[in-house]
């Protein structure tokens, strides 16, 4: 195996004989993304709607009722939550809450949905990024259940992809989610809902000072 490593590296070096040995990698000018403006929350909500991800905007005080209402609408009787989900978020829920303590895939498949927060959200693309940090849990949690209710604090919404990349740490496993699972494999027409959650709902929580 080590011989193959040396062989490939030697072949790469031989192939690059035209590159001066003392050449340093050239810096690349990268155009910035969309500038941050006041309308980020509107833009984010618009993009989510485009994906049929059903955004709902709520004030911080109304969040517990909004979570309960969303689960009620969905008819979700048993939902899984990350162990560190703020208790207040689900304080008005009638649904049975299952805190994740390492449930196996079959157990995750048996619940009606999952409620999480997120690390960052991207307005320009309507993307939610989970990094396994606070209120998000491990990756399987937001994958196996068929319904994902995600709470996005408006303060976490950034303008464009470069801002999100800058805020995230690759040390954590990351999942970028843009709408429900979908496929374009049949005649290149988009169909929502394949293996990942077929329904994604987003509660955008305006917090003081974000202008949201």
């Amino acid at each position, binding site marked *: *195996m080590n011989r193959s490593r040396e062989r490939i590296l030697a072949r790469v070096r031989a192939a690059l004989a035209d590159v001066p040995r003392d050449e340093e990698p050239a810096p690349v000018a990268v155009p910035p993304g969309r500038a941050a403006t006041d309308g980020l929350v509107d833009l984010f909500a618009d993009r989510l709607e485009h994906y049929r991800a059903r955004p709902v905007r709520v004030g911080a005080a109304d969040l517990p009722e909004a979570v309960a209402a969303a689960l009620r609408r969905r008819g979700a009787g048993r939902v899984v939550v990350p162990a560190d989900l703020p208790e207040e978020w689900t304080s008005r829920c009638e649904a049975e809450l299952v805190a994740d303590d390492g449930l196996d895939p079959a157990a995750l498949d048996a619940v009606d949905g999952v409620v999480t927060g997120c690390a960052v959200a991207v307005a320009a693309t309507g993307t939610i990024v989970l990094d396994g940090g606070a209120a998000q849990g491990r990756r399987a949690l937001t994958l196996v259940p068929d319904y994902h209710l995600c709470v996005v604090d408006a303060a976490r919404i950034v303008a464009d992809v470069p801002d999100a990349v800058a805020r995230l740490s690759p040390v954590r496993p990351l999942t970028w989610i843009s709408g429900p*699972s979908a496929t374009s494999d049949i*005649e290149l027409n988009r169909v929502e809902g394949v293996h990942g959650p077929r329904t994604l709902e987003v509660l955008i929580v305006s917090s003081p000072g974000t202008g949201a």
Partner: protein
Amino acid sequence: MSRTFLGMPPFPKAAEAAVADAQLRHNLHRATRTIRRTRGRAVAEVDDWEALRAAGAAIKDRTLRHLDRYLEQLEEAVTAAGGHVHWAVDAAEANAVVTELVRATGHREVVKVKSMATQEIGLNEALAEAGITAYETDLAELIVQLAEDRPSHILVPAIHRNRAEIREIFLRAMADWGRPAPADLTDDPRALAEAARRHLRERFLTAKVAVSGANFAVAETGTLVVLESEGNGRMCLTLPETLISVVGIEKLVPTWRDLEVFLRLLPRSSTGERMNPYTSMWTGVAPGDGPREFHLVLLDNGRTDVLADAVGRQTLRCIRCSACLNVCPVYERAGGHAYGSVYPGPIGAILTPQLRGTASEADAALPYASSLCGACFEVCPVAIDIPEVLVHLRERVVEQGGRPGERALLAAASWTLGDERRLAWAQRAAGAVRSLVPRRLPLGPAAAWTDTRDLPEIPAEPFRDWWARREKEDGR
């Protein structure tokens, strides 16, 4: 198992058969027209698309010009994050490495995320020989696998199938691979997607080993990136205990921040979306979240040959978006199978002959599978000048004598044109027999050229003779 491309006729023959298939042409026309429109909208929304495209090209060039150091950096970072790195010179070695890794787990089944690299090396077939079953989980790959078909598009391998055909394939073959399709299955895309979901659900929940490729590998951090839509990728990358990723050495980007460019370029150029539904990024192993064991297999398999060619090197910038296929007039009519490779379309016409060489008739024909219209270059998100590389490869084919007719013709032309007296003689000779020259060539390889064109008329008197006569007459 999907069939391999071995023994495929060269492009002109395969394309002729494909063009005669009205259903195929209809399917392709519909699908490529749809995606061209969606892509156009997604790209037009980005003000500085051209600058972004230039940045993508520059980052890839930077990577390729210093690939040795980035490969070593990647290896170090992946290892530090708890992963294992393997190196494979060619397809046989990569297949052997993966087979051995799967065997070591004690399991005989793997779930797969759609990956061009594993198709290129024929991994599924190699695993089958070792008694290991590989289950494709991408919807289009599933269709191809169930139909024992071959992929015909980089992004949508079953683009040549319409919904009615897919329904029939599901009804016929799903039972052989696991949960059967419901008997009352319709050809509504939603119903077909639902059937795929049910068919694969149990498989995902119990899978112990997964095999994937990667869209990007970040040298600086050791992070691997997979973009997908359906969630089958997340299933494979998250639920199993062991993950094996086979990645071409050209998939590297130097730094974490470089991803901001490619995450803007790839989804818009590929599926025409602002962002694809799911992107997974992982660095080695994360305790308590996802696979406990991670193996990265770095694949050469001809890539260093591409790297060694200063003109052809730009081919390795490719991020497999498949936009060039969707705009190509030749691809739209001939379909993907005619290219005889897992890489069809314009990018395949330059990548395959460089990876495999141009020794075989089929591979030597590929650089000619183009009208050089340049639409592929226009849409390429990393600005690969595909026409330039096509012409470069044609030169190579002619030099090696791969097309003897063309070579003899060029040799004769150079002999005639290289000497003034020989040229004058040839022109007079042609003028003398002009009434005998047909409008179409009856025989030989050049006859095809005149299927759609008339031969130019030969003037009665060569220009140089007319000029000499005129001078003489003037002087009188």
